[in-house]
């Protein structure tokens, strides 16, 4: 039986919150209660009760949604799946409960089976939101997205007459709903309670971490452009070779006030070992003319490889690296536990940065804005592509971006509500400027609209600023028919639009 936490319960003030303390925007937007479900039958029973009462259900696994899609639920109920515990099944394959934290998933899969999902890096992120939006992380260039491996989904939907329907969907059974669950994002069609995988990739034995940093104090625009262009060029060219797929890198562009910017990487060979580090040496040598220092700068946000700035088991070689067991490297960094005020944006890039784009970044990173401390900002430029870019998977899944070589995440963190307006405006202006260059179609100015150079935005990094554009669905779902497909799934499986939020698929 579910545990109900209402406004009188001492747990309510803690459980009503989002990790992003900007949400909900006002006290009146908080839910009336949180339902902590321990089983799928709990979820079904609670969901039926909520629908019968005419309330709105929202769903939470880890609580990391960047926008207010879960906690802005005035008078409604949040179904919290974090306590969902199902007895181990005798079924073949692997089962991941939607409420599990990714760190626990890694541990469980590794210790029981020696496999992993090619997923994220933050321990506390919940599987439900992470996987339903695609599921990408340090091993994605090597093994693809998590939804690429997904075989079936257990999901509760609400039929036209308001009855809860429990379904297991896969390629043979309700394949349209199954496809929609493979990357369209959470809060759209129903409540996913479990993900099933017939196969998963073997977990690597070991990985190496390395990093470089660059001094903002001596940085010039020319050198900044060189760093960005060298980085982007690699992923656009050499990074497409299979022997590099085990290389995952984040270039963290921070504001000049942080003193240093830099990159951090994780690598393993395709066989899960680190016997041959020539790919890493080759990659790091690209920056030798840019006056780097060994070791990545301390990460400003949550998206940086935690061990790339410290010395582990030293590897002999041209550049300092630390070698770690993959499990230790993946679990040890933690991540995702914090809370504060934050804003995020994203963009996929199919090709290298132009000089104009790099100069635009330099301009904003070196510009001081009175009254705004920009130390908490970082633009994480992740390597992408590799095994992700198997184009046929765009049709099988709802993760359609299969041609990008980099994925950008704009992150801004702060603590004081008084700083909201300045931070948000600055980031919005920077983003808009970056995507309004001379080659951008004016109709799509200020956005990375899918085309030759950009490939839209990531639904798991949702940005409600994009709602300002009538074409926002195309930013997140492309312009090749995926969004109309998702709308048809929505009409069929959630005709009363029970599951909705500001950026959910609309009827």
């Amino acid at each position, binding site marked *: 039986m579910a545990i109900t936490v209402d406004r009188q319960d001492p747990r309510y003030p803690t459980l009503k919150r989002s990790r992003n303390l900007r949400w909900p925007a006002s006290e009146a937007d908080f839910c009336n209660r949180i339902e902590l479900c321990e089983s799928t039958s709990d979820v079904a029973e609670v969901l039926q009760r909520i629908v019968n009462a005419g309330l709105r259900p929202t769903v939470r696994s880890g609580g990391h949604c960047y926008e207010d899609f879960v906690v802005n639920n005035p*008078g409604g109920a949040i179904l919290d799946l974090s306590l969902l515990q199902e007895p181990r099944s005798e079924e073949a394959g692997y089962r991941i409960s939607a409420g599990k934290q990714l760190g626990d998933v890694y541990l469980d899969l590794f210790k029981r089976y020696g496999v992993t999902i090619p997923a994220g890096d933050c321990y506390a992120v919940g599987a439900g939101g992470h996987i339903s939006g695609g599921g990408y992380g340090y091993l994605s260039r090597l093994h693809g997205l998590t939804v690429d491996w997904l075989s079936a989904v257990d999901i509760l939907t609400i039929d036209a007459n308001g009855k809860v329907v429990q379904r297991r969907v896969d390629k043979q059974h309700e394949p349209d709903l199954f496809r929609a669950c493979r990357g369209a994002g959470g809060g759209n069609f129903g409540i996913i309670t479990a993900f099933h995988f017939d196969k998963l990739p073997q977990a690597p034995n070991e990985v190496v971490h390395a990093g470089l940093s660059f001094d903002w104090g001596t940085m010039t625009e020319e050198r900044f452009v060189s760093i960005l262009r060298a980085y982007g060029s690699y992923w656009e060219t050499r990074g497409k070779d299979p022997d590099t797929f085990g290389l995952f890198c984040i270039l963290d562009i921070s504001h000049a006030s942080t003193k240093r910017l830099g990159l951090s990487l994780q690598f393993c060979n395709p066989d899960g070992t680190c016997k041959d580090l020539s790919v890493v040496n080759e990659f790091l040598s690209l920056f030798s003319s840019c006056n780097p220092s060994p070791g990545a700068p301390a990460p400003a946000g949550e998206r940086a490889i935690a061990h790339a700035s410290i010395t582990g088991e030293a590897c002999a070689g041209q550049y300092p690296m630390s070698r770690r067991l993959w499990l230790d490297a993946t679990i040890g960094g933690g991540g995702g536990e914090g809370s504060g005020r934050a804003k995020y944006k994203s963009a996929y890039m199919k090709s290298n940065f132009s000089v104009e784009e790099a100069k635009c970044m330099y301009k904003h990173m070196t510009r001081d804005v009175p009254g705004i401390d920009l130390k908490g900002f970082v633009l994480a430029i992740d390597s992408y592509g590799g095994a992700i870019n198997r184009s046929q998977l765009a049709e099988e899944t709802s993760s359609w971006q299969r041609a990008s070589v980099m994925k950008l995440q704009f992150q801004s963190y702060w603590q004081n509500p008084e700083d909201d307006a300045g931070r948000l405006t600055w980031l919005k202006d920077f983003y808009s400027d970056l995507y309004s260059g001379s080659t951008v179609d004016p109709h799509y100015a200020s956005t990375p609209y899918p085309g030759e150079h950009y490939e839209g935005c990531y639904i798991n990094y949702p940005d409600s600023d994009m709602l300002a554009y009538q074409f926002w669905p195309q930013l997140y779902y492309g312009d090749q028919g995926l969004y109309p497909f998702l709308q048809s799934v929505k009409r069929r499986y959630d005709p009363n639009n029970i599951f909705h939020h500001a950026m959910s698929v609309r009827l």
Partner: protein
Amino acid sequence: MNQDMRWSRRTFLQGVGCTSAASALSKVVRSNDLLPSRTDETPPAGFAYVGSTDDVSASGIHVFKICGDYWSRKQSIPSRSPISLVLHPNQQYLYAANEIDEHERLPCGTVEAYKIADNGDLTLMNRQPLSLSGTRPRHIAISPDGKYLVVAIHGGGAYNLLPIAHDGSVGRVAQILKEVGAGSYPGYQKSAHPHTVTFDITGQHVLATDEGCDRLSVFTFQNGQMMRALQIHSQPASGLGHIALHPSSNFLYVSNTVDGSIDCYRWLVNRREVKYERRVATNLKSTPGEADRFIISEAGRSLYVVSGHESILVWEINPETGELSLRQQWSVKNSSLQILTTSPDKRRLLVADSRQHALLSIPIHAESGELGVARAVAKIGMARSLIVKYI
């Protein structure tokens, strides 16, 4: 914007032909009446507020000064698709439901609050978004104590309750009731579509129809909270639309938008019970979702129904049984009658003709309840809502 209506009264009266019949439906009476001459200095008898949705640029609420059957437009205020208007019981405030899909980039409709000046002019006080996914609201009702608004949200399949502040402004949504359900009419009844809400005379109940799932709902209303009390399912594929409550509070009538019929229910308020009584077929189907309205005369003897495009049916009500018998079919050729209400003195029906872009004032015979000759009192585009404040 002031617009003198004397310009074209004669012109568009030429397009208004009326048929009035009880037994002889084909009898045509053409109006050659000219309206009595008035000037703008004449003290108004009241003000009419007309919501129109011509297109985005012209969508708004238009204020008319009323001097008998002489109306003059005195103000037009922008408002996005004001599908439903309601006056505060104190007559000082006007509320509008905006039938829109998006507000400030979010999928929801809105409600607007206006202050009414002594000269009838409107001033927007505030605009409140409806709940997320509360798109395309259809109808708005105000509690008899003037403290709450209830909105039937057609697109979003929900009801919203909003408080009204002392200054007449409308507060943020205080309660959301999400509806579910479906009907059998192809393509249209795939989900719940609340259509009309109304308070009963006690103010303790809210009656509501759902066009999407053929359901009549009764909610208790206490302490600013709506609670589901009853749900009555109508015949499949009816498409429940407007509600008219009999002044005796013993009966209520529901128009069915899909098949054009009218259902009569007995409303036993003390037992909080609704009993289906009978259905009247009209053979005048309307398109689902099309605005049509009906209203009961103050004395409770007649039910006026806009049905189809060109007709108003006048039904005589048996006060004991609620039974309806057709008394008159009143028609205007080449018209598209969209809305209907009564003037506060209950002596006229006010109807919008969207084809002729006219507002018609139709006298009601005091004894028989039959309708007389229509007079075009104002020119207006696609009128969707109309309410009159008499001084």
